[in-house]
């Protein structure tokens, strides 16, 4: 193991890590949103992200539509797909949740396939909604307008989602359904509308994540699938329930990758993911044990 820290390297690694984490956080928000309504881990998020970004790319880069129109197109498609997935969820109430989770992954595979059919057979990166140029240098790293825009968008969405869930009547309904769907139904809360609605919101967030992620990592389904797996890890830190902790957890995962990837702690080729994996493993165990303890207290 080699430890070498030269001036500015650590700061750069932290900045890279934070922006990488922001990308994960965008995905994590969608995962948390859908889990908060019916306790299903939505692995359709990467598929919707890729497809939403594909539509955005097609509209902006191929059809020449203005960026805002293309953005709207991608988000609408994401919302519709998310809503449809929510509708499917309603039909699967008898299915074990693990199977529903695999079903959502199936949807991702289909959307990857359709994106492959739409996109040209080369690696493409759509234009950033925040512009492809501009930015400033911090330490050894150039921070682009796209990164700043993504970071601010992510914080705004996190705060907005947290506010809606904790402070509004709609949020109270969502929490009621999450705690006990049957009881919520007896209070006159329209369960179906809320499940479809929240999954549609998750779809919009996924598409937004895809649109903001793809200018950085290219529109490659497998890269975005891995982004979503790291995002899942980040959201697990908050027990899949808290938007705020999912955001922080994702940033932590990104930071660990940034620091190890920058060679500050050089472990050898291919091992730069070890830190992120360790963070994720700790997160999963922490969340799992916390859940078990809570269940015990409830008993």
């Amino acid at each position: 193991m080699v430890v070498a820290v030269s001036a500015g390297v650590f700061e750069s690694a932290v900045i890279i890590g934070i922006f990488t984490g922001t990308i994960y956080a965008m995905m994590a928000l969608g995962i948390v949103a859908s889990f908060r309504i019916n306790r299903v881990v939505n692995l359709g998020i990467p598929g919707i992200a890729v497809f939403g970004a594909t539509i955005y790319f097609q509209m902006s880069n191929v059809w020449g539509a203005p960026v805002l129109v293309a953005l709207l197109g991608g988000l609408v498609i994401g919302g519709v797909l998310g809503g449809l997935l929510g509708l499917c969820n309603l039909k699967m109430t008898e299915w074990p949740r693990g199977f529903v989770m695999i079903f959502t992954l199936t949807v991702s595979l289909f959307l990857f396939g359709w994106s492959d059919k739409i996109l040209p057979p080369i690696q493409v990166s759509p234009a950033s909604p925040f512009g492809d140029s501009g930015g400033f240098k911090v330490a050894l790293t150039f921070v682009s307008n796209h990164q700043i825009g993504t970071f601010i968008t992510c914080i705004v969405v996190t705060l907005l989602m947290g506010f809606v869930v904790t402070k509004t009547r709609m949020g109270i309904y969502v929490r009621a359904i999450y705690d006990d769907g049957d009881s919520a139904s007896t209070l006159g809360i329209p369960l179906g509308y809320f499940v479809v609605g929240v999954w549609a919101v998750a779809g919009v967030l996924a598409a937004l994540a895809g649109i903001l992620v793809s200018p950085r990592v290219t529109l490659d389904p497998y890269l975005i699938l891995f982004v979503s797996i790291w995002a899942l890890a980040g959201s697990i830190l908050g027990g899949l329930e808290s938007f705020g902790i999912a955001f922080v957890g994702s940033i932590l995962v990104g930071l660990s990758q940034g620091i190890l990837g920058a060679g500050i702690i050089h472990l050898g080729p291919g091992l730069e993911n070890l830190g992120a994996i360790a963070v994720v493993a700790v997160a999963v165990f922490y969340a799992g044990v916390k859940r078990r303890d809570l269940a015990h207290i409830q008993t």
Partner: protein
Amino acid sequence: MIGTRRNGGAAVADDGGQAAVDETAAKARPARVQLPRTRLLLPAIVFGLGLAGEFILPTHLTYAASTALCYGLVGLGLYLPLAALRELPLNGAALAGLSAYLFAYHAASGGAGKMILGILVGVGVCTAVSIAGGLASLVVTGLYFTVASLVVQIGIEKVVFSVGKLTGGAAGRGVAQPNFTGYFNTNRVVFLIAGVACLAITLTVWRVKKTKTLCNWVMTGHQPEGADAVGIRRWVQKVVIFGVSGLLIGVAGVLFAFVNGTPPPPPQFGVIWSVIFLAIPIASGLRTISSLWFVAAIFTALPIVLESHHINPNLLSGSILLVALMASQSQDAVMARIRSLRRQPEAIEEIALAEGQAALAEIHEKHVLATAPAVLKEVDLRSPKLSRALVGTDIGVTFGGVKAVDGVNVRVGPGQRLAIVGANGAGKTTLFNALTGFVPPTKGTVHLGDLDITGAPAYARIRQGIGRTFQLPRLADILTVRQNVLAGQAQGDDLIPRAEWLMERFGIAALADIPIQVVPFGTRRKVEIVRSLARRPEVLLIDEPVSGLEDEEVSELLEVMLELQAAEGWGLLAIEHDLRFVTGIAEQMMVMVDGQVLTEGAINDVLADERVRQVYLGEVVTV
């Protein structure tokens, strides 16, 4: 010991009387509910087709068939934790890859010794990682386990598979195959070797499924507290299940390398493949091993058949998964069986009732022990160790700031019958949980005779001689009545005939072969009591045994319990709200209010206490 029992028990019938009783009982007993038995037709067809492939298929398709066997073996490995523990491991592909690369790493240099070393290292490491996963599942379960297994998959995929020295880089690392030409060429011989290995493994797993081991595995995964209550060491079961799972996946990994001649490249052991491998047991309906092989064959054949159509691999994988999921929901063997039985609920109720009455008639006619099979009479029914009392001293349990139980002393000796009553929330069940190890007491001690069991885990206390039931029966829904009763029972002694006999006595024998999910609630309570009694407990703790039962069923249960308790002499501690049952079953009574003992003593004295009356009328009473 045939003839008379020690300690002044009632006389036991001689063997001549036994035959007459058996005959009468047989006449009175209703017909058993018939269920479809495991059919050998599908396995025979699947393996027949597989074997025929060796001679019929063109040589390149025998290679595909070998790959199908590898897929099936990974599926079989994942099937065990999925079916028995309801855990979804998403790391099958990484484990198979790990085994394949480790095998190839050692076997590449050729020679039988190196090859055996490669197999041992590959399969061994794969098994060890899987066992570690099993131990992790003691801490994190369900969704968190799935994500944890995904982390293992990503860890192996991103870290281990990136080590070129292990994977052999872009070209891979070749594995020596037997070199044959002619009709029985290398491909066919490799297929034959893989086929024989898979057949042997399948038969072994199939055989295990027929034993009581399956009941223990399912109980561990489906009803952890129920498993504890029958003395199953859950961690051992999990280690075994995941160990076997890792072993099978490891063998599959070795076969992957052997069949290909080179282990497939790392993307073939990626996360998507883990999901596809997991889809194999899911699509097979989780219960039939032969259909698992069938699904593996289809999963392999589809890409070959559709190759000429140039279907996008993601669309193809998605379609396969979707078909697997739909198939799993439409052909789940257990659910189909339950659905079919649910169509005849009246018949099941009727049988349960008639069976109960028949058992009761038998008790009226003959002393309960007279109906015991000969093998049980040879065992001294009052074992020498049946002289220990369960003693809880100054027991206290606190949840957060709430004192659920506060300084309670309780003692149940051999042959004693004590009832605990009190309003909801008085701390009765918490006291039970503290005595049996399901909740750690915050203060006080628990002894069984001279043995201090305060810190012992629940399963160890059960093994020491405590039996317990739960307010809501903790039975595995997918197991049958008999399988639930036999789970956790020791093999090879008289406990199994005893369990069968008790099922007769409690009137549940006619329903022995149907899944617990469809039996009436009262019957489930009886199943739990039988399960506890089958282990010959020294002290039996029963929690609200008659809540939800019809009057007739309460009387029936009371009679059977009293008869058996008098004959065998175990101590009885019962929680119950039904005063009719309490006065019928108990000699002593303890009343709890707000976690403390209000009063205790002989049942008539306690019932005469004005404060007890107030408790039952819902008036505020302070201890």
